[in-house]
């Protein structure tokens, strides 16, 4: 029952918000829905249901390990949204608010989906509903970003549909009942003997297509090209939900498919490990190289996100311990990215531009946002007291225990390169004096607490996860890793 509420509640609020006549009071629906949704998600995190709700979706261990994070992400963003939409009162917010709420509902659906077809439908719908969020600013650049996102994301989603069909056929070919739930597929894959399990050629075709498709959604290189455009042009809070929520959803989709393919045996497991490793390392390398050259600090965050997705893929390739660490990293990355996107959005609005060529001296003009951005950058590049340090450390340890020393070396090298790129750009923006005399004359930009406190909250959550990871969370990750690796 509560599982259904998780999905239905935001959708219900979306309908009400869409029908609500008043532009000024409509954004209030965001925090109301956010608080209720988070309360439900945390309740389910602490008291996980023993029986699945139905065959289509359930709050299983994997959903338990990720869904509360996206829910908290939405909660903090919703408070930011109220202040943000007040600051941007010149734009109509009817579609924006409704689309945000629908996105939250669809995220809950996709994370809980137990069926290949349902997972696809939810992912596709979430892609579509984020389009109006992307071009909220209504500029030519925003439409360009939305178009590229639609075309690349749509093609990726189409490929994952073809992959889903191939996986279905793999089951059907050897006399499967056509039950496309993950549990049934994994059970069939584990059956001994050729002719009863999943047909291997079809299974491999399906894995390649599904990895490409959901990898596009997640933003793994070389399918990442929509990401800098989309994150560069979207409002900060949309960036948070995409970088923390949508990518987590795609990652969970890949994990669920991987579980099925892995069950087919040693040979299939070697293929999934190798492909995930290759894509992960390539993503990290591409992101590190682009981070060294981009002059735009919102696109910088997108490349940093591509790097984090590479880290997740490497974690998922490193067995049970690596998957545990990757789920940990989903949380720390989501919260840290939240602080970064929100503060970068504030700076972008105050400065009126987003490249190093025109923006500087922001520590003087927007002191609070600039400080949050600097601390956030240190956190995401894995400086010790923050969460990402611990999760990335766990992933490195997992690579060592899998005797993949080369992977660990490449991993750390890419991290170092991206540390150079990120800090160089951020300090160029934050330090110094404003370029133009007009900006100096404009002086300090007043910063509203409603736009600062949510970013601080994200930073605090990231720090808290690093210093004191709650036992209930690490239990949830252990449960999810156990679910995915039933056969050691």
């Amino acid at each position: 029952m509560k599982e259904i509420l998780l999905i239905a509640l935001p959708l219900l609020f979306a309908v009400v918000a869409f029908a609500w006549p008043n532009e000024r009071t409509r954004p209030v629906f965001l925090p109301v829905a956010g608080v209720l949704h988070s309360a439900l998600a945390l309740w389910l995190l602490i008291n996980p249901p023993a029986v699945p709700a139905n065959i289509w979706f359930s709050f299983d261990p994997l959903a338990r390990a990720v869904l509360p994070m996206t829910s908290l992400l939405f909660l903090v963003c919703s408070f930011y949204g109220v202040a943000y939409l007040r600051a941007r009162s010149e734009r109509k917010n009817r579609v924006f608010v409704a689309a945000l709420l629908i996105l939250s509902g669809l995220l809950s659906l996709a994370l809980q989906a137990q069926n290949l077809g349902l997972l696809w439908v939810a992912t596709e719908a979430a892609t579509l509903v984020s389009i109006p969020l992307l071009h909220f600013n209504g500029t030519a650049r925003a439409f360009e970003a939305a178009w590229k996102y639609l075309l690349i994301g749509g093609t990726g989603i189409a490929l994952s549909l073809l992959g889903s069909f191939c996986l279905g056929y793999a089951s059907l070919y050897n006399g499967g009942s056509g039950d496309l739930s993950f549990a049934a597929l994994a059970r069939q894959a584990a059956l001994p003997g050729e002719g009863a399990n999943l047909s291997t050629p079809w299974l491999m075709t399906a894995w390649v297509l599904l990895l490409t498709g959901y990898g596009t959604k997640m933003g793994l290189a070389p399918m990442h090209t929509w990401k800098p455009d989309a994150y560069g042009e979207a409002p900060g809070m949309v960036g948070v939900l995409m970088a923390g929520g949508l990518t987590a959803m795609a990652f969970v989709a890949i994990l669920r498919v991987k579980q099925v393919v892995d069950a087919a045996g040693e040979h299939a497991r070697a293929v999934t490990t190798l492909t995930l490793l290759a894509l992960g390392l390539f993503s990290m390398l591409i992101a590190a190289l682009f981070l060294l050259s981009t002059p735009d600090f919102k696109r910088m965050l997108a490349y940093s996100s591509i790097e984090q997705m590479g880290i997740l893929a490497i974690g998922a390739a490193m067995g049970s311990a690596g998957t545990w660490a990757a789920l940990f990293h989903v949380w720390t990355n989501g919260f840290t990215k939240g602080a970064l996107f929100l503060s970068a959005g504030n700076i972008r609005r105050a400065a009126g531009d987003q490249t190093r060529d025109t923006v500087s001296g922001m520590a003087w003009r927007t002191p609070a946002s600039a400080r949050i951005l600097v601390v956030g950058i240190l956190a995401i590049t894995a400086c010790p007291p923050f969460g990402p340090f611990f999760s990335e450390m766990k992933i490195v340890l997992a690579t060592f225990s899998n005797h993949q020393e080369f992977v660990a070396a490449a991993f750390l090298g890419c991290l170092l390169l991206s540390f150079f790129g990120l800090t160089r750009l951020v300090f160029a923006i934050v330090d110094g004096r404003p370029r133009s005399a007009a900006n100096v004359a404009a002086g300090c930009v007043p910063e509203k607490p409603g736009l600062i406190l949510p970013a601080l909250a994200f930073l605090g959550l990231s720090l808290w996860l690093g210093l004191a990871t709650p036992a209930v969370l690490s239990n949830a990750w252990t449960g999810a890793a156990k679910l995915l690796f039933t056969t050691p």
Partner: protein
Amino acid sequence: MNLVALASSRLPSVIRAAALQGVVLGIMPLLLEEKLRWTFVAIAIGTIVVKGFVIPSLLRHALRAANIDREMQPLIGFVPSLLLGAAATIGMVVLSGHLPLRPEHAKLLAPASFATVVCGFILLMARSKAISQVCGYLILENGIYLFGLLLIHSTPLLVEAGILLDLTVAIFVIGIIVDRIQREFDSLDTRKLTSLRE
């Protein structure tokens, strides 16, 4: 059909090719079955209506509203893209020879579907107008749907309906974006969308 779409130089004929393909796809499940069942009839009617009529008319509407000239402006010429399409079709037939099919399924379904997907890709990449890219996407989806027919006995109606619905909404959203791009850039030439790059 794919080759017609690759060869034609005018937008309406590409839309017509995609629509005709949709209708043929809609009739397919009825031809493949010996005895009629109401679910198949429902799927067939839904497919014909959506793929054959609703989406093409949305596209034509966008074409009229945007009032663009109807030549295609290919990035890859018509003859090279035809050759590419033919080569891809042959390649896909060879490739799917390696994938086992159940005996009761028509031999040509899998290669035809993969070939359609690749042709859709070529159309998507080789044309610069936004609408023709949408047609490429549509043909790609048609190819996937063709493959889905292999599974028609096992996938529940609910999933099929969801897929069809998502597709319609996708095209609808694409139509809106196309409209906005037209207004902002005074053109639907995606080669002009170059301000976002490193």
